[in-house]
C-alpha cells in the first residue's frame, strides 16, 4: 500500500568516519511518506550515527540528503527541526535541570507580549502528555522522573516537532508493554497522517508489529532494504549478524538446576522509608531471581537498597548466618556483591575513561589504590571481555563515551563480571543490546548460575525474565506483592500477578 | 564625654600599614578614645561603606586613610551634613577642602625628591645608572615617589634611570624583579644604584644582589623609602645606604587636632605635613632599629 508512496527523505552515499573508525560507508537510505521504516543492525552497526548525520548533529563526510524532493544540508539539529524532522536520540537526551514542560517546549515556548507564558506552556504540556496517558506535574524538574517517563517526554517532544519525518532511536528501550502499545498507537496515527517514521530497536517483535520496511546495517555498510512482510525472522537475523543465530536461548534454561541450592543470602524486613517498603528475600546459590513490576514500582529501589547505594533503615541482611555490612556500595562489594545499574549514562559509564579502565574500575576499587592491576593484567581482562561479550570497539583504549549505546552496556556488565561476584544485581541488563548479544548475555547469565553465582535480574522483558529466572518477585507501588516460583514462572502468571494486585488495589 | 572615632584603614598590605594601625590604636587608647576600626581590604568601595556606616552609627569623628585620591566628594558631603569631622591620614583626597577637617600626610613627591637628592649628592657627579623598583602600578605612592625622584634627577645628567619595573611593594617581587634587572644589565655590572619605592622591595632586592655575587651598598647603592625596621638592619650591615622616613604615627597629630577642634572649635591647618627624614648608615641604624622594632611593623 505504501510501496508507491513518494519518498519524503532520500539519503545517498552517506559516509562518516571518526578518528580511527569508519562508522558509515556509502550508506543509502530512503523513507516514504506514510511508512514506518525500521533501521536495524547490531550494536555499533552505525544506526545512531546515520540518524545523527541525517539531522545535522554530525557533519557527514560525504553523501546527499533529499527531503521532499529538495536537497537539504542541515548544519545543526535546529535546522533539521525547522525542516520538519523530529528526533528522539538514543539515551534520553533531555535536560534534567529543566522542568518537563520546559523540555517539551524548549525553543518554541508560547509567548505573550514577548515573554514566555509559563502557564500556557504548562497547560499545553499537560495536554500533550495526556495523549500518552501520562499525568505528572509538568512544572516539576525532569530529573525527578524515571527514565521511562523521560523517554515518553522525549517522544512527545519529537512527535510534536516532526512535520515530515519522525526518527525514533531505541525509544522503547526503557518502556514496558503498556507504554509501547501507546507509543505504537501514536506512531500509527502519525503514519496515517503521512509522516515518514524511522524506528530503531532491538526488539524484533516490535519491528514486525509496526514496521513496513526494514533496512539493515552491518559494520557501517548497508546490507539491504526489504519489505517487512516478506522477510522471515530468521533471515532478518542472518542479515543483521551476517550468520545464523544458534537458537539456544529459547528453551533450555537453568531453572531445574537452580532452586535446589542452599539459601545463601537472607534479607529480613529489609527496607527504607520513602523508597521501598520492607520486604523479605532469600536468594540461593546458583539461582536467578527475577524482579518484575510496572515502571516506577520500585524495582530499581530494590536493587539499590540491596547493593547499599541506598542505605536500608530497617531489617537485616545475612549470609551463612553472618550479618552482612551493606552500608555502602563499597561495603557491598567487599561482601562480593555486584550491581549493574539501569541508567548507564548517569550511574554506569565513566565517559572519558577507556574501555579498559571502565572494565577494570570495580575490580581495582576493590583491591584498593595501593595494589594497582598491572597494565598487562588490565589489557588481558579487557581483551577477554571484549571478546567474550563481543564488544564492538576499535580498540580497548577508546573512551567509552564514543562507543555505541549497546556496547557501553556490555562494558558495564564486563566491569562486574571481572570482579567475579557471589551476588550480582542486574537492572535491565539487556537494554539496548542487539539480538546476537542478547542471546549471548542470557547464556552468560545461565553459565554464571551454573558456577554458583546468585543473581537478581530486573527486566521489563517478561519473556527474558521467564527464560532464566527460577523465581520472580512482583513489585507494585514500592512494595513486594507476590512471588512466583517453579512452574508458575510464566509470562501469563506474571502479568496476572501484576494485574491482580492492581485489582486488589482498586 | 568620651569620643567615638571611626577609623577606615585601607587594609593590611604591608608592615608599614600594620604599624600605622597599631599606633593609631595605641594613641586612641592612651587618650581614652573609643576607636571603631574598619579594614577595607584594599577596596575603596569598602571604605565608602565603612564611612557610611560610621555616619549611620553617629560617631564623633572619622579618620580616613584613603586608598585613592578621587571619589570621596559624596560621602564626605554626607559626613559634613551629619556634622562629623573627617581627618585624612597619609594621603589627601581630590575634593573641596571644606569637606574635611585636615589632612595629615607626608609629601610623597618630596619623599622621592629627598631620595633622589641623596643619590645625586652621594655619587657627586660621577655617571651612575639607576634601576628603579616601582610600587604597585597606579597607586599614588608609586606615581608620586617616581615623580619626585625624577625631579631630583633632572638637573643631574650623570644619573640615568635605565630600568624601571613594578615590584608591587612586596619583598618577593622586589627580589624577582631585581634578579631580572641584574640579568638584563650584564650581571649587574651596569648598575650603580637601586631606588626602591619602599623598603620591603629594597630588602628583597638586596638579597637578589647578594645572590648574584655583588655587594649591595657598595657595588650597588640602595636607597628606598618608609624607614621600616628591617632596612635599618640592612643599613647596619652596610647593605643599604639610605631610607626616607614615612612616619606611621599619623594618628597622634590627628587626635590632637580633633581635640582642639572639639574643645573650642579651632580649625587646624588644612594640611599637616609629617617630616620626611632621611636616614643613612651614619645615623646609628641599630639604635633606630631597636626603637622601631616594637611598633608593630
Amino acid at each position, binding site marked *: 500500500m505504501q510501496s508507491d508512496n513518494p519518498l519524503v527523505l532520500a539519503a545517498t552515499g552517506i559516509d562518516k568516519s571518526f578518528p580511527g573508525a569508519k562508522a558509515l560507508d556509502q550508506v543509502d537510505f530512503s523513507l516514504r511518506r506514510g511508512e514506518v521504516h525500521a533501521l536495524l543492525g547490531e550494536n555499533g552497526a552505525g544506526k545512531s550515527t546515520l540518524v545523527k548525520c541525517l539531522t545535522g548533529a554530525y557533519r557527514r563526510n560525504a553523501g546527499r540528503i533529499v527531503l521532499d524532493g529538495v536537497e537539504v544540508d542541515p548544519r545543526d539539529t535546529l535546522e533539521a527541526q525547522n525542516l520538519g524532522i523530529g528526533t528522539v536520540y538514543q539515551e534520553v537526551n533531555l535536560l534534567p535541570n529543566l522542568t518537563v514542560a520546559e523540555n517539551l517546549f524548549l525553543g518554541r515556548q508560547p509567548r505573550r507580549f514577548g515573554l514566555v507564558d509559563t502557564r500556557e506552556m504548562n497547560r499545553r504540556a499537560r495536554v500533550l502528555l495526556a495523549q500518552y496517558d501520562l499525568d505528572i506535574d509538568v512544572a516539576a524538574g525532569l530529573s525527578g522522573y524515571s527514565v521511562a517517563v523521560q523517554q515518553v517526554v522525549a517522544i512527545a517532544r519529537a512527535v510534536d516537532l516532526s512535520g515530515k519525518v519522525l526518527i525514533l532511536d531505541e525509544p522503547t528501550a526503557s518502556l514496558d508493554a503498556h507504554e509501547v502499545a501507546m507509543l505504537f498507537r501514536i506512531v500509527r496515527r502519525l503514519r496515517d497522517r503521512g509522516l515518514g517514521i524511522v524506528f530503531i530497536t532491538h526488539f524484533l517483535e516490535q519491528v514486525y508489529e509496526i514496521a513496513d520496511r526494514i533496512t539493515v546495517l552491518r559494520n557501517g555498510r548497508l546490507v539491504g532494504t526489504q519489505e517487512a512482510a516478506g522477510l522471515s525472522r530468521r533471515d532478518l537475523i542472518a542479515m543483521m549478524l551476517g550468520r545464523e543465530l544458534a537458537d539456544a536461548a529459547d528453551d533450555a534454561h537453568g531453572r531445574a538446576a537452580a532452586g535446589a541450592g542452599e539459601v545463601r543470602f537472607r534479607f529480613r524486613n529489609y527496607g527504607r522509608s520513602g523508597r521501598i517498603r520492607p520486604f523479605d528475600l532469600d536468594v540461593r546459590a546458583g539461582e536467578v531471581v527475577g524482579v518484575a513490576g510496572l515502571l516506577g514500582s520500585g524495582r530499581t529501589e530494590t536493587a539499590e537498597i540491596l547493593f547499599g547505594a541506598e542505605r536500608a533503615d530497617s531489617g537485616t541482611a545475612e549470609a551463612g548466618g553472618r550479618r552482612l555490612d551493606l552500608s555502602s556500595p563499597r561495603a557491598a562489594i567487599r561482601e562480593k556483591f555486584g550491581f549493574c545499574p539501569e541508567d548507564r549514562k548517569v550511574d554506569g559509564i565513566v565517559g*572519558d575513561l577507556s574501555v579498559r579502565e571502565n572494565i577494570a574500575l570495580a575490580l581495582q576499587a576493590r583491591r584498593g589504590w595501593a595494589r594497582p592491576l598491572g597494565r598487562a593484567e588490565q589489557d588481558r581482562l579487557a581483551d577477554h571481555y571484549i571478546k567474550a561479550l563481543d564488544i564492538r570497539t576499535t580498540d580497548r583504549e577508546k573512551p567509552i563515551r564514543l562507543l555505541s549505546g549497546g556496547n557501553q552496556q556490555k562494558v558495564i556488565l564486563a566491569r562486574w563480571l571481572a570482579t567475579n561476584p557471589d551476588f550480582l544485581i542486574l537492572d535491565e541488563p539487556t537494554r539496548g543490546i542487539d539480538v546476537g548479544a542478547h542471546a549471548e548475555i542470557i547464556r552468560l547469565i545461565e553459565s554464571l548460575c551454573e558456577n554458583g553465582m546468585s543473581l537478581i535480574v530486573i527486566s521489563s522483558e517478561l519473556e527474558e525474565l521467564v527464560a532464566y529466572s527460577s523465581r520472580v518477585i512482583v513489585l507494585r507501588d514500592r512494595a513486594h506483592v507476590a512471588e512466583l516460583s517453579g512452574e508458575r514462572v510464566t509470562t501469563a502468571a506474571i502479568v496476572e500477578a501484576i494485574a491482580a494486585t492492581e485489582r486488589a488495589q482498586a | 564625654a568620651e569620643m567615638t572615632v571611626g577609623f577606615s584603614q585601607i587594609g593590611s598590605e604591608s608592615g608599614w600599614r600594620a604599624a600605622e594601625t597599631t599606633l593609631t590604636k595605641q594613641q586612641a587608647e592612651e587618650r581614652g578614645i573609643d576607636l571603631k576600626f574598619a579594614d577595607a581590604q584594599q577596596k575603596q568601595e569598602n571604605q565608602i561603606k565603612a564611612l557610611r556606616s560610621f555616619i549611620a552609627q553617629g560617631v564623633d569623628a572619622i579618620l580616613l586613610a584613603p586608598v585613592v585620591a578621587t571619589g570621596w566628594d559624596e560621602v564626605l558631603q554626607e559626613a559634613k551634613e551629619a556634622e562629623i569631622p573627617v581627618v585624612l591620614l597619609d594621603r589627601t583626597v581630590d575634593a573641596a577642602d571644606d569637606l574635611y577637617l585636615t589632612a595629615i600626610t607626608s609629601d610623597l613627591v618630596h619623599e622621592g625628591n629627598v631620595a633622589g637628592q641623596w643619590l645625586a649628592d652621594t655619587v657627586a657627579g660621577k655617571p651612575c645608572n639607576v634601576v628603579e623598583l616601582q610600587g604597585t602600578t597606579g597607586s599614588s605612592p608609586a606615581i608620586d615617589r617616581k615623580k619626585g625622584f625624577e625631579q631630583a634627577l633632572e638637573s643631574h645628567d650623570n644619573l640615568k634611570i635605565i630600568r624601571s619595573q613594578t615590584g608591587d611593594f612586596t*619583598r618577593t617581587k622586589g627580589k624577582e624583579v631585581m634578579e631580572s634587572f641584574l640579568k638584563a644589565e650584564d650581571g649587574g655590572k651596569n648598575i650603580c644604584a637601586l631606588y626602591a619605592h619602599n623598603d*620591603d622591595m629594597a630588602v628583597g632586592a638586596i638579597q637578589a644582589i647578594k645572590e648574584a655575587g655583588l655587594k649591595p651598598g657598595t657595588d650597588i647603592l640602595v636607597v628606598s623609602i618608609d624607614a621600616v625596621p*628591617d632596612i635599618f638592619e640592612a643599613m647596619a650591615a652596610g647593605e643599604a645606604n639610605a631610607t626616607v622616613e614615612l612616619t606611621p604615627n599619623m594618628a597622634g597629630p590627628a587626635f590632637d587636632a580633633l581635640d582642639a577642634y572639639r574643645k573650642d572649635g579651632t580649625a587646624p591647618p588644612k594640611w599637616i605635613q609629617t617630616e620626611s627624614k632621611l636616614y643613612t648608615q651614619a645615623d646609628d641604624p641599630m639604635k633606630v632599629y631597636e626603637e622601631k622594632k616594637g611598633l608593630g611593623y
Partner: protein
Amino acid sequence: MSRFLSLHVLRLLPQVAALAVILLMISFAFPDFFRLEIQNGRLYGSLVDILNRGAPVALLAIGMTVVIATKGIDLSVGAVMAICGAVAAACITSGHSLAVTLLVTLGAGVLCGLWNGVLVAVLDIQPIIATLVLMVAGRGIAQLITEGAILTFNDPGLIFIGSGSLFGLPMPVVIWLAFGIVVALLVRRTALGMLIEALGINRRASTLSGVSTGVLLIAAYMLSGLCAAVAGIIAAADIRGADANNAGLWLELDAILAVVIGGTSLLGGRFSIAASLIGAMIIQAINTGILLSGFPPEFNLIIKAAIIVLILVIQSPRARTVFAWLSRSRGAADGAGQDRADRAGTGQEAK
C-alpha cells in the same frame, strides 16, 4: 612501550610547543636569554630564574591538578601558603629545630587541606565556595600569626630551602621537580590516578563501582594543602621572612591557569601533572620575559593577555586537529569539532 611513550609525548606537545614559542620570543627581545653559566657552584641565568621563580606556582599546580581532576577547585592555596609561611617563621623564631618547624608547617598545610576536603566531600559544599572560606579567612589567620608585619628569621637551614642550591640547581627547583616526580609516580604507579579520574568524570558511577570517592576527595585537597605548605615555606625562605599580607596573593589564579594551560579540563577527569608543570613554567616564562623586556609596567598585563590568547589559539582543539593531522597523516577533521559538546556532555552528572 614506544606507543605508550609516543602517547605521552603527544599529550604534552601543545604545551611544549607553547613554551618553546614563548622562550623564542623572549630570546628575540633579549638575546642573552639562553646563556647559562656556573657561578658559585650553581647554574646561573635567566632560564634558571624561570625554573626557580616558577617554583611556588609549580608546586601549587601539582596539588591543583589533582583537585581539578576530581572536578573541584582550590581557591585557598594562596592563603594556605601565607599561613604555612607564617607558621614556619613563627616556629623557627620561637626556637624550634628545623625538623620540627618543617613538620609542623607541613602538618598545618595538610590540616587546611583536610578542612577543605571535609567541606567538599562530607558537607557536600561546592568546591569553589568551600575553598573560598579558607581563602578569605586563611590570610587573616596568617596575619594573626605575624600580626601583619613581615616576620623575619635567620635560621640558615630554613633559608637554605629558599636560596640554597643542590646539584647546581637552586633548592626550590630541586624541590618542585622532586615533588612533581614523586606525586606523578604516586598517582601513575598506583591506581590512584585512574580512580581520581573516574571520580572526577562521574562521581556517582565511581561510588557505585566501589571507589571510596569521599576519602579520595579529601586526600586530593590534603595533597593540595601539602603542596601549598611547601610553596609557602619556599616563598618565606626565599625572602627570609613570612609576609602574611602578600605571600601567595592571587597565586591560586596562576595555579589554575597553569593547570588549564596544561590541558586538564576544569570539568574534571583526565589530568597530567607534567603538563601542568610545563603550564606553570609557561606562566613564569611570560612573567620573566616581561621583566626582561624592559617595557614600562603599564604594559605588563596587556602583554600577558596577548600571550595567553596566543597560547589559547595554539592549544585550541581546532589547532590540536592540525597537530593530530601533522602527527598522523590521516585523521578526521571534525572529530575534534564534536569534542567540546561530547566532553561537556559526559562531564556533567545529571542530578
